[in-house]
């Protein structure tokens, strides 16, 4: 997993529980891209992803006293973010405003802008589109595992699922992606 080795979870957690405002800012700085990334891959819109990511950090700030610390701080944040994304996706409003190719292309363009490689950009756009077409639950495990680098156990902890379910869901998602990408590319 792409952990930031500079972040000491245990010390940070102690300071967060003590109400250290600086500790909260450090946590946001350390995990902002990961939390935002999950929200963006799940929701497909940057504004909505920022809204959900902000809410995830605020909820963590409010409920840090109840966090036992038996999991990584990042896993805990992923769990909060995942729950918020799934709730948002399940809302009636979001069902009316589904992903569209334009939004996915914008996400792909943002990701590939640094390389400015047409083929890469097209490939990434196809991957984003294929990921967006997955069901919500399959998309989430793909994002957490293949994009965010979580292990099966961390995903199981974050989503409160058995490891076997995570494994099965991930395999089905990858098989489905393979079919979609072979057609697209």
């Amino acid at each position: 997993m792409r952990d930031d080795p500079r972040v000491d979870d245990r010390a940070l957690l102690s300071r967060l529980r003590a109400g250290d405002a600086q500790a909260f800012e450090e946590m946001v700085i350390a995990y902002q891209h990961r939390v935002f990334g999950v929200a963006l891959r799940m929701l497909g819109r940057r504004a909505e992803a920022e809204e959900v990511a902000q809410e995830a950090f605020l909820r963590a700030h409010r409920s840090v006293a109840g966090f036992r610390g038996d999991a990584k701080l990042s896993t805990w944040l992923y769990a909060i973010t995942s729950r918020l994304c799934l709730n948002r996706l399940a809302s009636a409003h979001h069902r009316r405003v589904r992903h569209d190719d334009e939004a996915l292309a914008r996400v792909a363009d943002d990701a590939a802008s640094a390389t400015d490689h047409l083929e890469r950009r097209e490939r990434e756009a196809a991957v984003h589109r294929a990921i967006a077409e997955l069901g919500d639950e399959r998309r989430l495990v793909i994002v957490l595992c293949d994009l965010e680098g979580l292990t099966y156990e961390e995903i199981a902890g974050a989503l409160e699922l058995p490891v076997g379910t995570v494994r099965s869901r991930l395999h089905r998602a990858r098989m489905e992606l393979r079919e979609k990408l072979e057609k697209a590319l």
Partner: protein
Amino acid sequence: MTCADARERFSDLVDDRLAAADRITLDAHLGGCAACRRELKRFRATVALVRSIEPARAPAGFVDRVTAAARPRPWWRRVADGAFFPLPIKLPIEAAAILLVGVGVAYLFQRTPELQQQARVETPAITQEAPREAPADQPAAPAAKPDMPRPFADAPEPPRVAEERRAIAKAPASPPPAATAPAAPEPLGATGAKREDAPGARANTDAVAPSRARDEAKELARPDARQRAAKLARPADVTASLRVASRPAAESALRELVTRHRGAVDAMRTEPGATVVEARIPRDEYASFAAGLAALGRSEPARETEADLPAEVRVTIRLE
């Protein structure tokens, strides 16, 4: 191991989670199955492609916005947020609650006067009751029923009159009040009426008056008394005012006069400065009654209805 079993283990293989024994079995299958080898190659490429996507980055200023939002809000802001937000949920609920409270208050307010009215004593006015209009469905005069028998020839005495008579009979005799007016109808009171059950002695009207009021109250409280009152609500056929020297004496004399002419006193009530007597006289006795009435006191012009008097003439006499 079948091809399906082998392909089912591709994710474990790619993620290096395959147990050693399973890895050996899978490798053996892949060594002999070109199709599964091709599938595995495509599977690995897909996973690699997904993992190669550039990670997303939070927008500029994200940390500042989050830390600003996490700062403690003033207590009034927290109260306002708790009371009004989210608006789509809390506003309708609060509006409905206010409406419910308003409806409840209005309902109670409307109900309270009614309850207060119900708490009031349901006894009708006794001394100040004014004659009411007769019900529309009741004929104004018994003339519409020509075959109606003469009501007072052999009719039983009204109960109230009987009660008064008994009260009068029980009251101790006392000298009559000073007769300052020459028209004091003492002979009438002394001789009594022609009827068999006429009172035999003149009563002390002062002693009777309080008991009369009680009797009137009792009488009017009876259900049939209310019905009678409804019948009497129609305007009198004859009204007259008599100026008398002594109202008690005049009241007694008037009773005697009514009884002598086969009539009945329906009501007697006290008003400021006067006593009002309502009675019924058979038509054929009315002329004689009127003459006797003139003897009681100085009469004001009487009012008589233009139409022929009914078989039962209702008279209202005001003794002043």
